[in-house]
């Protein structure tokens, strides 16, 4: 479905059918971290815990290396991956900062100044030309 109009939005993964199918086990792993006992078991032995979920080698590596954008590219959804961030003690705002490549203070300052503007951030062409 690469012809979808939303694929032209830069820096964004729309969690559509294709992403959801690809990311099912990755997201269900993240979902398991809602429970405190699972968070503890995961942190005690990440590799062994991940063996319970039949995700791809790429997805598994993205989890182990906390590559947040890569998890999204491989079908992760932000409301699921944020549970992994919570397990690591990362707040939602700091997680957002990490994904943008900004340091937390610079990101916080950007938000206080009104956030990332829409001008220049509407299409992939905007980013290519910027």
């Amino acid at each position, binding site marked *: 479905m690469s012809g979808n*109009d*939303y694929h032209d*939005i*830069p*820096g*964004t*993964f*729309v*969690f*559509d*059918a294709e992403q*959801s199918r690809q990311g*099912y086990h990755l*997201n*269900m792993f*993240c*979902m398991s*971290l*809602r*429970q*405190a006992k699972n*968070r503890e078991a995961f942190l005690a032995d990440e590799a062994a815990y991940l063996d319970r979920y039949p995700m791809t080698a790429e997805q598994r590596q993205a989890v182990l290396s906390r590559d947040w*954008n890569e998890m*999204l590219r491989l079908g992760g*959804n*932000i*409301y*699921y991956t*944020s*549970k992994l961030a*919570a*397990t690591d003690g990362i707040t*939602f*705002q700091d*997680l*957002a*900062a990490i*994904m*943008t*490549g900004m340091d937390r203070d610079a*990101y916080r300052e*950007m*938000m*206080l100044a*009104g*956030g*990332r*503007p*829409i001008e220049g*951030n*509407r*299409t992939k062409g905007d980013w290519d030309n910027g």
Partner: protein
Amino acid sequence: MAKIVGGYATSHVPAIGVAIDQAKTEEPYWQPVFAGYEWSRKWIEEVKPDVVFVVYNDHATAFSLELIPTFALGCAAEYAPADEGWGARPVPTVHGHPELAWHIAQSVILDEFDITIVNDMEVDHGLTVPLSLAFGQPHAWPCAVIPLAVNVVQYPPPTGNRCLQFGKAIRKAIESFPHDMRVVVFGTGGMSHQLQAQRAGLINPEFDQRFLDLLVNDPDAAAAIPHVDYLRDAGSEGIELVMWLVMRGALGDDVKELHRHYHVPASNTAVGHLVLEPK
């Protein structure tokens, strides 16, 4: 007969809940966010609803990818606040209104809105943050709550038009309930925000203000906004705004805008808030 006496729209940013729970509402960062809710705290105290009908979304809490209902109506007697990874919010258990909720379920299904009925569900910040904004920190919530969870996580959410039409069916359902009762309908989520990937932090005040104007005065035009416009112009999570259209549909054709508040930022998000009265 039951009567819809008001509409209440608000963002449901989780950090707002944290600020309330940790007594940070007077801090310089948060004070301008909460100042815009003082008027509506008094308003809802005077309106004294018996029931609030809350349109919100679950954020991978009660529902995961195992089950993705587009519209899920809570018919339970109570709902426990959920642990979303940081421990449950210290807020009262939410009490439902099974009799009215079941009446609405039957009415809208026969009206051809094929909803899911839920009898066991935890509720996350999407529902409890609006209650905290409206009612503060009471020992018990002052009224019954009927939750309507809308899928806005898995693309595609229901269209804006479907949400508006569903709201109209909810109005018909509530106003045919044969007991005197005052109902306020909440639409929650939004406004512009993007929580994910390299474009996180997107905020678009022009989109938001236009949406507020259309929602009040031209809901058909607001309902015609295609999904790609929300995703592009209001950020990938800004698409939550379709839920405000359910509330708007439930208010009837013409409304009076009693109160508006808009502030950037609360964490990653533009905060919007409206109080409407049916004409």
